[in-house]
């Protein structure tokens, strides 16, 4: 396995071609997508002069490889370009939304951990009992209900019926920390419920594997109380793969909150990119995908590092 710094360096080196592939995919999609940004930008009146001007301004008539080359050159200098729809730099747009999405992702992860791990443990320890099945059912229900649907149901109940939580919008935590939590409570629950099921399943299977392992049998044979076996020995080992999985899920949450953000009008990455795709605001699509991909890669690296550090068998 080699030393840790060497490992990290190697992994980061591998990330570069991956990012290159991501950029190819994004530009490939741009090439394939029908629809002309200039036509869109010209608005209802579709003044031919405006269309021609937009083509010139954003160099839409250039061949795709020239556009790609320009883009790479700019990105290397840290410039992600300008949104043609909002006339703002993509870098600052991403900067503004990164926090929102990251916060939403972390809160969702909290929900997921709070629901998924206890449910997984319960279901493994009380295997094949009513506890196991109901924990599975509750956990899996979260995975089975479409997000946009669950979101609207929650809004109708908690906002309209009870009036406890705001139905839409985002409040900055610096302005109003409680309002911030209230605004994100439902969207993060919706996102977290899906992840909870994944965590639950993996906690359950990891726990089952560990509970059957030799050292646990030994612990049991030594006459340790079952609760203590579970808490002291099984849990610690079982959680290792779950933690790594959690990091990967977190990475997916960064890019995968599209519909939930839309339903709750949360101004994060998801909303930014969906609007950008539908408005053919390519600079934004490119920038956001690049940044989410980078975040995804880094989180995976972190996940593997945790695995590497915690799992004794991998540290040869």
């Amino acid at each position, binding site marked *: 396995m080699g030393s840790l710094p060497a490992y990290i360096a190697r992994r980061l080196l*591998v990330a570069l071609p*991956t*990012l*290159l*592939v*991501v950029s*190819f*995919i*994004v530009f490939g*999609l741009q090439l*394939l*997508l*029908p*629809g002309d940004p200039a036509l869109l930008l010209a608005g209802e009146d579709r003044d031919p002069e405006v269309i021609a001007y937009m083509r010139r301004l954003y160099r839409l008539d250039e061949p795709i490889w020239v556009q790609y080359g320009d883009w790479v050159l700019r990105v290397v200098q840290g410039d992600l370009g300008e949104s043609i729809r909002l006339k703002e730099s993509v870098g600052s747009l991403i900067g503004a939304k990164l926090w929102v999405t990251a916060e939403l992702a972390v809160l969702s992860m909290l929900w997921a951990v709070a629901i998924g791990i206890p449910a997984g443990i319960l279901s493994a320890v009380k295997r*094949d009992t009513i506890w196991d*099945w109901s924990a*599975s*059912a509750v956990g*899996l*229900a979260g*995975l*089975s*209900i*479409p*997000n*946009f*649907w669950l979101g*609207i*149901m929650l809004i*109708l109940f908690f906002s309209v019926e009870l009036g406890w939580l705001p139905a839409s919008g985002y409040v900055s935590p610096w302005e109003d920390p409680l309002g911030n939590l209230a605004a994100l409570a439902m969207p993060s629950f919706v996102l977290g419920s899906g992840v909870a*099921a994944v965590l639950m*399943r*993996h906690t359950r*299977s990891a726990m*089952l*594997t560990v509970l*059957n392992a030799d050292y646990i049998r030994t612990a049991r044979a030594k006459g340790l109380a079952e609760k203590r076996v579970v808490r002291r020995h099984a849990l610690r080992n079982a959680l290792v*793969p779950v933690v*790594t*999985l959690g990091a*990967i899920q977190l990475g*997916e949450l*960064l*890019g*995968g909150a*599209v*519909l939930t953000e839309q339903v709750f009008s949360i101004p994060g990455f998801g909303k930014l*990119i*969906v609007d950008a*795709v*539908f408005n053919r605001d390519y600079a934004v699509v490119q920038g956001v*995908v690049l940044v*989410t*991909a980078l975040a*995804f*890669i880094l989180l*995976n690296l972190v*996940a*593997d590092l945790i*695995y590497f550090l915690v799992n004794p068998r991998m540290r040869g």
Partner: protein
Amino acid sequence: MTAVAAAPAGEAPRDRFRAWRRLRRRKAAMVGLAVFAAFILLALAAPWVAPYDPLKTNFLLVRKPPSGLHWFGTDEIGRDVLSRVLWGARASLLAGVVSVTIAVAIGVPLGLLSGYARGWVDGLLMRVTDGLLACPGLILAIAMAAFLGPSLTNAMIAIGITAMPVFIRLTRGQVLAVTVEDYVEAARALGNPPMRIALRHVLPNILPPILVQATLAMAAAILAEAALSFLGLGQQPPAPSWGSMLNVARNFIGQAPWMSWWPGLAIVAVVLSLNLLGDGLRDAFDPKED
């Protein structure tokens, strides 16, 4: 990017029916299998069991609650919801089955190739896979569906391609694990051609985790079709799918809640059953079990 979710590599297939026997003992999995099978039967039998033409509108019976004539009520333009749920099962289950078939049909061979060939082929394939995995999945699907044009078929293709990289990774990981096993080494030593080893010895051993992943991916694909419908990129009107029905019903939650109950329940039931089945399969194939 380690695929932590990968199930452990199997041993040689000593007893092909052992897994089935073990699966049969898992009640939850059997319930899942039964529910899924029942939905497939209903979808196949839709033309005979649906009480009405799913496209037949009746402007005098718009958004009527469940009744003796229309058990599940009627929808926003007076169609029978029960009939639409039954016909919609075809679209939604097809979305699950076809997109996963696409993902498996492309992903598994590429994974085999990658695991076997090693070298630059492996490197290239893995970078592409990493790239696909790193792109937000729904965005890929949206862009692809927008490019191909909105239709159920294109949504299935888009979902399938997005689900593919996981299968490439999973297969490759299994191949790497299996090829070092003794019986494969032995087969190689006996001079069997690589192709034959791949098909006879490797493939059967990597099937279990792929089967598990397939059931889970199918559940995800059914939800993805619903999500694409939300954005207008799934099944096209007037043909029903559960996702598109749910998406329309969303606008009538206050006035006609029954419009969303049934497609919603159907999605939950199928996705749940697939997940239960997947879990059961995982346990049944797990060599460490009993």
